[in-house]
Every structure is written in C-alpha cells, then in structure tokens.
C-alpha cells in the first residue's frame, strides 16, 4: 500500500496548496486556474477511493463547465479593480462583513460535521444503504438514486430549474428596435413577396412606399 499512500499525499498536498492559492493569489485569473487544479486533484482522490463515477462527473461538471464559465466572467470583468476598491477605499464596504459572516457560518458547520464524525462513529453503520462490491459504483449509485431517493433527486432538479429560470428573468431585458431573423419567414418567402414589377413612365420615375 506504499504507492497508494504516495499518490494520496501527492494529490492531497496539491489540493490543499491550490485551495490556499485560490484565496491568496492576487491575480483573479490565477485564482480560477488554481481552483481548476484543486478540482482536478480532488477528482483524482475520488478515483483513488474507487468512486470513479463521482471523480469523472466532478471533472465534467466542475472543470469542464462551471470553471469555464468562472474563467469567462473573471476574464471579462475587471475583478481585481473591484476588489481593491472594497479593501483599500476609505468608505466602508458592505460586502466584507457579509462575506465574513457567511464564511464563519460555513466554518461552524464544518466543525459540527467533523465533530459529529469524530464522536459518533455509529452514524455510518446506521446508514441503510447496502453497498455491494460486485457491481460498479455507477450501477450502485443508479440503484439508490432512482429508487429510494427519487423524490429528493427530483426536488433538487426542480430547485435547479427554478434557479435557472430566476437567473434568466433577472438578467433579461426587453429591448426595442431589434431586428431578429426568422428562418421560417425567410424560407417561406415567395418570389412575389420580394419582387414587384413596375412599369416606369419616362421622365416621371417611380415612387416606392417601403
């Protein structure tokens, strides 16, 4: 098992280092790159404990989609300037106290979870899920997710859908005077709709009403 520990420490040191660098680096684009490195090393750790499905989904969803959008936004916005305004301008910022409060709550929650794990080891044995070792973990996740926990699964799907619709509605602005393309209109145009033959009288010209 020596090589297993070597790989475990390798990935976990990279994960912790990059997690620290996410908050410590001054360049926000670097922060996102470190976040990506963090996700990748965490997914390697998932694969090492045999949860290859979770590891791959982590790569696909977080690294392949979410972090791309992060990077997209961080590159487009001038986040560094905004951060400097919050931290070094003379007037007080509202964001910092709220951020501190949220991170304090998360920290307390983590302490509760880790403490519960430490002092109540029976919490895992009382779990009702039977994990069988002769089917792949993709199968076993599917077996519990779509049978015992189908309602929770669907509720989380609904929450995501509502959040998505909310985000669209918040950012949606109706603008006037936009020229949009309608493919059906374009394709269904006949020759008569576009071309009109007019007899032009000499020295009088034609008047169009477009």
């Amino acid at each position, binding site marked *: 098992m020596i090589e297993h520990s070597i790989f475990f420490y390798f990935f976990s040191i990279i994960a912790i280092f990059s997690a620290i660098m996410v908050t410590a680096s001054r360049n926000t*684009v670097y922060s996102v790159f470190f976040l990506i490195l963090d996700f990748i090393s965490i997914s390697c750790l998932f694969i090492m404990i045999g949860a290859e499905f979770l590891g791959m989904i982590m790569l*696909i969803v977080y690294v*392949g989609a979410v972090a*791309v959008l992060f990077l997209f936004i961080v590159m487009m916005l001038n986040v560094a300037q905004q951060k400097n305004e919050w931290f070094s301008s003379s007037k007080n910022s509202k964001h910092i106290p709220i951020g501190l409060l949220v991170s304090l709550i998360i920290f307390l929650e983590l302490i509760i979870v880790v403490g519960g794990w430490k002092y109540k080891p029976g919490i895992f044995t009382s779990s009702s899920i039977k994990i069988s070792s002769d089917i792949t973990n993709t199968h076993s996740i599917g077996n519990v997710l779509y049978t015992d926990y189908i309602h929770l699964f669907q509720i989380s799907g609904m929450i995501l859908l509502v959040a998505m619709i909310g985000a669209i509605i918040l950012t949606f602005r109706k603008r006037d005077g936009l020229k949009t393309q309608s493919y059906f209109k374009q394709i269904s145009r006949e020759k008569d709709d576009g071309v009109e033959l007019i007899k032009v009288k000499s020295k009088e010209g034609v008047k169009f009403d477009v």
Partner: protein
Amino acid sequence: MIEYISILFDQTYKILFLLVPVLVSVAMMVWLDRRVWAFVQKRRGPNVVGPFGLLQSLADALKYMFKEIIIPASSNKVIFILAPVTTMTLALIAWAVIPFGDLLVISNINVGILYLFAVSSLGVYGIIMGGWASNSKYPFLGAIRSAAQMVSYEVSIGVIIINVLLCVGSLNLNDIVKAQHNIWFIIPLFPMFVIFFISALAETNRPPFDLPEAEAELVAGYQTEYSGMMYAMFWLGEYANILLMCSLGSILFLGGWLSPIDLYPFTLIPSPFWLIIKILILFILFALVKAIVPRYRYDQLMRLGWKIFLPFSLLWVVITSSYLFYFDLLPGN
C-alpha cells in the same frame, strides 16, 4: 523494486506503441485534409514533397522546428507557454481508453466514455489560456468565442452519449462496442449520429464552426500570437482531437473494431484495421464538410446548439427510453 521497474517498462512500451502511430497519423491527416480540400476545389493540393506530397507534413514540421519562438513582451509568459502544452497533452491522454480490439486497450476502465467526455471537455482550456495569455484583442475574442461554443456543444454531445448508453447499459467502451455485435447503433439512432457529427465539428472548432479562428474577422483567433513549434503544437493537438472525435464516433455508432460482416473472410482481418478504416471514413467526411460548407455566423451557431440540437436530442432520449422500456429491451445488469 524490480517488479515496479518491469511494470513501468511494460507500460511505457505499450504507450509508445500507441502514441507514435497516433502522432504520425496526425501528420498524415493534415496532409489528407489539405488534399481532400484541394480535390473538392479542383486544385492539386500539396503534391511536391515526396510521393503524392506525403512528406509535406514532415517538411512543415521541420520548418516549424527551426522557426524562432516569439513570446510577446506583454504576454503572461507561464500561461502562454502552458497553453499549447495543455492542448497537446489533453489530446493525447484520451487515447488511453480507445479500444482497438477486444480488450486491446491500454486502460480498460469502467467509466471509459465519461473519461473521454471529460478529457474532451477539458480541451477548451488550452484555447482559453492561449487567448488570455497573449494579452491581445484578437486572441482574446477567439478564446471567448470558443469557450461559449465548446461548452454549448458539449451539452448536446453528452445527451447523445446518454442515448447510446441507454442501449448498452454500461459505461465501458469495450462493452459499448460489443453491444453493437448485432446491429450498429448508426441504424436505430441515425438522427443522433448526424447530430453527433455536427456537434463534433463544433467541439473541435472545425469549419463551418471555426469561429474561434475565423481568419476574416480575428486574424487567426487564439493562435495569432503563436509562432514556431508552439503554433505547431496547437495544430497537432487540434488534429489529434479531431481524430479522437472520429474514433469516438466510430465507437459509439459505427461498431468500433467490429467487422461490418461477421463472416469468415472478414473475421481474418485484425480488428484495429476496421477501427482505422472507420476513423478514416469519418475524417474524410470532416474534410469534405470543411471544403463544402460556408462558415456559420455566431448567433446561428448558438441557436443551432441550444434551440435545435439540445431539445431534439433530449426528445430522442425520451423516445429511446420509452421504446426500450415498452418492448422490455432494456439491458439488464
């Protein structure tokens, strides 16, 4: 200790036997691409260096090697150099799970298809890093375009893969190929194959969806500031990705390494041959599309991805799963 060294040696030998042919065939593919493109346009294409111009790519590679690598003064140097390396590495590591025959594969993992999908979705990073680190307008615009484009088309590729997985019941690539023993999935899932092909074009930034490097608008897109071997690495990575998408298409829909007819004279031919033939056919289709179809406008590209392909492939998931459920054809576990 000696045991580890022998395992390491064994694996290295296997990997070299896969990667060297892949790299050589990438160079040949560039030649084939230009040749097909030229024939459609009634030109001759590269035909001077070597027989039929076969050595043209080698001559190009030599030229790139001896060119100076210019790193712009205002660029972010580390990320600028890492970008082509990322593209190239990601294009090559995915070949680890491609089966060339029954269990003739470097790593036969349970979630092979997810691995391929994950690696191909990471491919966008090389482009974004290159575009951002160049610190110049055209590369940046190209990077932003490709980020949006590749994320959108990944979604429809994911849904198409779900269609195939419903018929197989396993995420292992070897099982996916074996499930097509009776009928290749291109026949029951033909609309999905068409959508997969078009999405693969968009995912690899091939024409008509090569907006990240649209030369009329963005000079060369994210590659504008690159020169010499670094440009060549982007280029090789791009073609290795195209080959990867072709092999994914032939594994998912064209029966991978299975022979078209399961009879005596055909079964004598070794299985890697069939996979290579299928990859070649798909690649020639890619090259033909490049020559025939004009480039899409950006809003048309996004409309195609989100408003047409995504709903259609989702609808097809519903149809496939209802059909399998109703006729009790769902693969058991």
